[in-house]
């Protein structure tokens, strides 16, 4: 069976899977002189709906009805319209209400939406007044504020993965409340109009997606390790890097143009294991918001995307946790109350096991910890701590025993790198309309390398007669950020939702600190000489002011208008800018929406790297007085549809121009030093454009998506790069298609599959060898043996590697035991083991008495089975 046949079979199978789950409910009803309670009971008996209504809802006339196999919609219309009762149907509820008499007085309902069991705040939950047709969503701290006319109101509160709730309220004054939702095993999305959430198809923004952490855990994962960032790679706006890694390019941007936030604090190195595992632990993660355009004004500092990861707060009422034994890591998570309903904690620890099972000196671990304390209804404090470490070492010796007169050489290398982050956040509610958050944070990334080369000579039989000469080298680099942020959410009325704030970051970059020690030890002498080098610390002061307003312009038009004003001071030079952020949504009816957006962004730090995987020596550096900040303008237009229940479709087109971006000049690469980096980079510009199509199934036992993207991304620099000509960017992959499906077979079994096909990545390969030049017309001592290493490279990224495709599968089995719930996850990445070319290099092979030169390709992600066992208690 060839690849095309396999592709067809997979596509058809997965399309069939996704068609499962659509259903219709027909009603047969025969009632005489019935009350509303009789009618409700009869409908509830025949459907899965629950009615929500207040005591004032009654039939003025006794109901007589006799229908057979009628649709629920027809029955409701026949019964409710004559009685003047309005109804609103959601996935689980039918809410009944009377039209409101217009009220001149308005009041504000505010509060938090929380998980009823753990009392965890829910981010992005929908709070919607059914009879006022007004709604809102909770912010990053679960807070909402909704201004409504006085009088009776029916609130519908919903959140993905939770059972929706109807709340009947009689509003007489500003009201504070906590709304609790119960979890639902089915991962389904509730679509409610008029709530203006920040992400998703209902949002006024383009390219804004919220990832459900439950879905991320169910998706096929590299070596069984669920990964927040790899889940994002399925989105049409994201191109992945080397297969198996979480490295990604968003809409033609470079990989350092993505802003990763952990509880609002920017992260620099977000990877373990050279990019194959991301630093964000799913067990500790509550929600992931992803923005590929229409960036909210509170975010800045990167050109291409924002990945905002929010961690769990910890259960306020019960102690529980989970323990997972996986193929590559094991992790344990514990959470519970420190003081009931006042203080909670969550701790999650993850560690790789490779060094325990194999003779490899490599391991990584990370710790997520959080304490959450509620002082009162208006004040809440969060304390977050993260520490991640990767360690690698190697020891080599020449294999000789140190006999008398012999020399023993030993070399030791130890590498260590990681992030440490701590933050304090204080939520304060000034009023029902004004919510504030203050953040103080410190984030530190370090890379450390120790090398020792020891030569020992044994002079005689006594140990004391050793002569030992040791050269030791230590090199390290650090980034140390101190941050203070103050953010305010202000809801003056239903039509406006204003956010503004101030952010300050002190960046301290220490790109290269090294020391060398030469140590000589004999029987009676010990001396050493040493030199150290400490490159200039670079201090950057970044201050940002932002303001944005999410505006409802009538029932059909929503706009989001924002501005961000960044000020960056480095080497006594001030860079200031204005970043407009504009988004507009027009509802065209029948579930159709048109959206347009324009965003300007600036970036003040950048990654110096030549590697396509993540290596610890990748160096983040700030701009300088000579190197201007990178700047981008992004235009997006889109068409969106959600008129069919449980389905969403979208098409987005974008054009992005990037200026003052830079890259290493041809032939130069990272030398593990921040010295003189400005001399070896070239400044240029980039353009990317594309169109993305997506169809998503959001309800039913099978959910998933089908996505296709056509995109191009190009770069142009001065003559030091590609002779000044335009060239395809590293991540330029014109065609990307994927189909993802998750089948919730039952409460015990889940199955997920993902098949992706995309154009190959760009590579720079040679067309022919080059002769060694002899330009002086005189005899020079050319090294003829080295001639084989010289090749013509006609241009950067001059060759597209073959198309890549792979099928990833996962199967999860849940079972409730006496003391815990057991989950076994079995996965298979690249199930039919297709050799996907991740990069290419020149190589030679001895064929027919001569060396034949050509290009070989490498695949980083062949077929990989995985297994994990999780106990949740």
């Amino acid at each position: 069976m060839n690849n095309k046949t396999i592709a067809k079979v997979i596509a058809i199978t997965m399309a069939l899977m996704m068609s499962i789950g659509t259903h219709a409910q027909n009603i047969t009803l025969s009632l005489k002189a019935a009350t509303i309670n009789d009618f409700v009971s009869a409908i509830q008996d025949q459907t899965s709906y629950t009615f929500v209504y207040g005591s004032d809802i009654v039939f003025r006339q006794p109901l007589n009805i006799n229908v057979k196999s009628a649709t629920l919609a027809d029955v409701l219309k026949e019964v409710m319209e004559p009685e003047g009762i309005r109804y609103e149907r959601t996935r689980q509820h039918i809410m009944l209400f009377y039209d409101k008499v217009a009220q001149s007085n308005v009041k504000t309902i505010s509060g938090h939406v929380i998980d009823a069991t753990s009392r965890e705040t829910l981010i992005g939950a929908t709070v919607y007044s059914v009879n006022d047709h007004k709604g809102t969503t909770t912010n990053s701290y679960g807070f909402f504020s909704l201004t409504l006319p006085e009088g009776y109101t029916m609130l519908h509160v919903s959140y993905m993965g939770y059972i929706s709730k109807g709340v009947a309220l009689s509003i007489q004054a500003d009201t504070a409340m906590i709304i609790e939702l119960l979890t639902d095993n089915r991962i389904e999305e509730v679509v409610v109009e008029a709530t203006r959430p920040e992400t998703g198809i209902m949002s006024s923004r383009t390219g804004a997606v919220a990832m459900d952490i439950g879905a991320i855990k169910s998706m096929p994962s590299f070596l069984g390790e669920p990964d927040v960032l790899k889940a994002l790679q399925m989105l049409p706006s994201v191109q992945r890097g080397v297969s198996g890694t979480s490295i990604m390019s968003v809409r033609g941007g470079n990989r350092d143009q993505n802003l990763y936030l952990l509880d609002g604090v920017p992260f620099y190195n977000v990877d373990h294991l050279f990019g194959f595992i991301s630093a964000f632990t799913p067990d500790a993660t509550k929600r992931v918001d992803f923005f590929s355009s229409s960036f909210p004004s509170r975010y800045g500092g990167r050109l291409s995307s924002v990945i905002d990861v929010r961690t769990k707060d910890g259960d306020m009422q019960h102690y529980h946790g989970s323990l997972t034994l996986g193929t590559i890591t094991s992790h344990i998570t514990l959470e519970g109350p420190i003081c009931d309903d006042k203080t909670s904690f969550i701790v999650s620890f993850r560690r790789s096991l490779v060094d325990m099972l194999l003779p490899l000196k490599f391991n990584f671990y990370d710790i997520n910890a959080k304490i959450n304390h509620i002082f009162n209804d208006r004040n809440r404090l969060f304390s977050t701590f993260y520490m991640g470490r990767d360690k690698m070492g190697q020891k080599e010796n020449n294999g000789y025993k140190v006999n008398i007169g012999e020399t023993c050489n030993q070399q030791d290398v130890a590498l260590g790198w990681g992030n440490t982050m701590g933050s304090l956040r204080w939520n304060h509610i000034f009023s029902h309309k004004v919510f504030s958050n203050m953040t103080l944070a410190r984030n530190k990334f370090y890379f450390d390398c120790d090398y020792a080369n020891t030569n020992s000579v044994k002079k005689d039989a006594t140990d004391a007669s050793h002569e030992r000469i040791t050269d030791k080298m230590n090199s390290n680099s650090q980034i140390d950020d101190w941050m203070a942020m103050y953010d305010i959410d202000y809801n003056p009325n239903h039509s406006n939702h204003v956010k503004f704030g101030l952010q300050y970051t002190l960046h301290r970059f220490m790109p290269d600190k090294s020391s060398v020690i030469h140590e000589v030890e004999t029987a009676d002498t010990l001396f050493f000489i040493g030199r150290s080098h400490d490159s200039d610390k670079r201090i950057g002061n970044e201050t940002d002011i932002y303001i944005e307003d999410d505006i409802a312009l009538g029932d059909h038009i929503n706009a989001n208008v924002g501005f961000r004003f960044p000020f960056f001071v480095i080497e006594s030079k001030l860079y200031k800018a204005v970043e407009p952020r504009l988004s507009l949504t027009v509802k065209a009816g029948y579930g159709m929406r048109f959206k347009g957006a324009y965003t300007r962004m600036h970036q003040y730090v950048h990654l110096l790297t030549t590697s396509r995987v993540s290596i610890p020596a990748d160096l983040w550096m700030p701009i300088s007085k000579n190197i201007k900040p990178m700047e981008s303008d992004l235009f997006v237009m889109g068409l969106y549809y959600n008129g069919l229940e449980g389905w969403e479709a979208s098409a987005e087109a974008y054009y992005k121009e990037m200026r003052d971006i830079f890259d290493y000049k041809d032939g130069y690469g990272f030398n593990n030093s921040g010295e003189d980096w400005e001399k070896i980079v070239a400044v240029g510009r980039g353009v990317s454009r594309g169109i993305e199509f997506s169809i998503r199934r959001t309800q039913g036992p099978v959910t998933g998506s089908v996505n296709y993207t056509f995109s191009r991304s190009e770069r142009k620099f001065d003559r030091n790069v590609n002779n000044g000509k335009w060239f395809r960017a590293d991540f330029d992959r014109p065609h990307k298609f994927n189909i993802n499906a998750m089948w919730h077979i039952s409460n015990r079994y889940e199955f997920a599959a993902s098949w992706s096909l995309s154009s190959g990545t760009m590579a720079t390969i040679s067309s022919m060898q080059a002769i060694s030049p002899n330009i002086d017309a005189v005899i020079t001592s050319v090294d003829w043996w080295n001639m084989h290493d010289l090749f013509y490279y006609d241009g950067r990224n001059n060759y597209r590697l073959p198309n890549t495709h792979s099928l990833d599968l996962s199967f999860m089995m849940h079972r409730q035991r006496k003391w815990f719930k057991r989950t076994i996850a079995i996965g298979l990445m690249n199930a039919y083991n297709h050799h996907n070319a991740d990069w290419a290099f020149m190589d030679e092979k001895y064929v027919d008495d001569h060396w034949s030169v050509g290009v070989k390709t490498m695949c980083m992600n062949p077929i990989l089975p995985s297994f994990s066992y999780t106990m949740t208690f």
Partner: protein
Amino acid sequence: MIKKIILFVAIALTICSCENEDIDITVRHKATADIRAILNNVTRKNTIEIAVTKENSMEVNYRNGMSVSLYVNGQLTHSGITSGEGSSYRSGDFELTDCHFNVGDKVELFVDSDTLDIHASAQCVVDQPVVIKDFKRVFDERSSPLYYITINEPLDDGKDHFYRLSIYSQNTYFYPYDYYYDSNENSFNNIIWKRVDNNLYYLSSDFSFDNDIALNDGQSRVNMNLGDTVIKTYGTWMGGTENTYAIFSNKYFENGEYTLRINPELSNISYSIWNQKWNHLLVCVSRISDDEYYFLHASTLLSQYDGGKLFSGNPPSLNSNINGAKGIFAVESTSAVYDFWSCVSIEQVQQIFNADTIAAEKEVFLQNFNL
């Protein structure tokens, strides 16, 4: 145990299926010539090198039998076929003798091979030379010469200009024919010097420029090694020859002037009496085209490129300014200054050669150049 087995299987599969055994991609192209034709208006003898790859082959070999024609202002000045000694060494060369190029000359090159279907052509104009305004020699602590060369850019047009610095030298070796060693004074006495016969030749000299900001293109050097190892400069040349030239731009010029600072590495400088020498030197500063500058720059980087690995940078692109082939064609416009330097005193030299002899040697040396 099951988990261990799964892990081992996973790792084994990873290792086994990561790399294809066979070469995956063959680059398709017709037979292509690679031409090095960097000519100079100061040297009387210039050489054009030509190599060819076969169709769809990446391997390059020097090629005899290629037809070469050179026209200056439309007049054929040199023509012939490439020839060499039969081995790869020096084969594929076409030597141009008695070369004279003047400022403003339009020079055209044609390389043809009907059998290989190769027809290549290129042209250039000889540019105005740079002015060597001042030339100073001092001695550093190693008793090797340190030169200060002040150059002036006559074109005040605000554009980028590019230059190549090279040094030609003729070395004469001599050795102590007779002497005795005075152990009390720990010195050699009554040395009678004798010249090494048949050891008179010239070559392009190596030189170092660690302290020159223009030649290092703004790089400063930080040497963290404890030993004598010197970090390799970016100006090093391909293969085994290093610093036979350096290229630079007017980026660091002030008021159209710049003073170069170089140390010619006159090889085998030694305090041993067994291998002494003196040198006739020609220090040349050539104006070069931007095509040649970027070609030479990329060539240098290419020689140091550790290519194609996962952590490698992007390889430099060798741009070609030859139609129908790859390579570079240029006629450099050069200014030069002569110097004589010996690692022993003139008095010692004159024990066996007087000033007339040295002047005669200078004459022989300078005959190689259009000065």
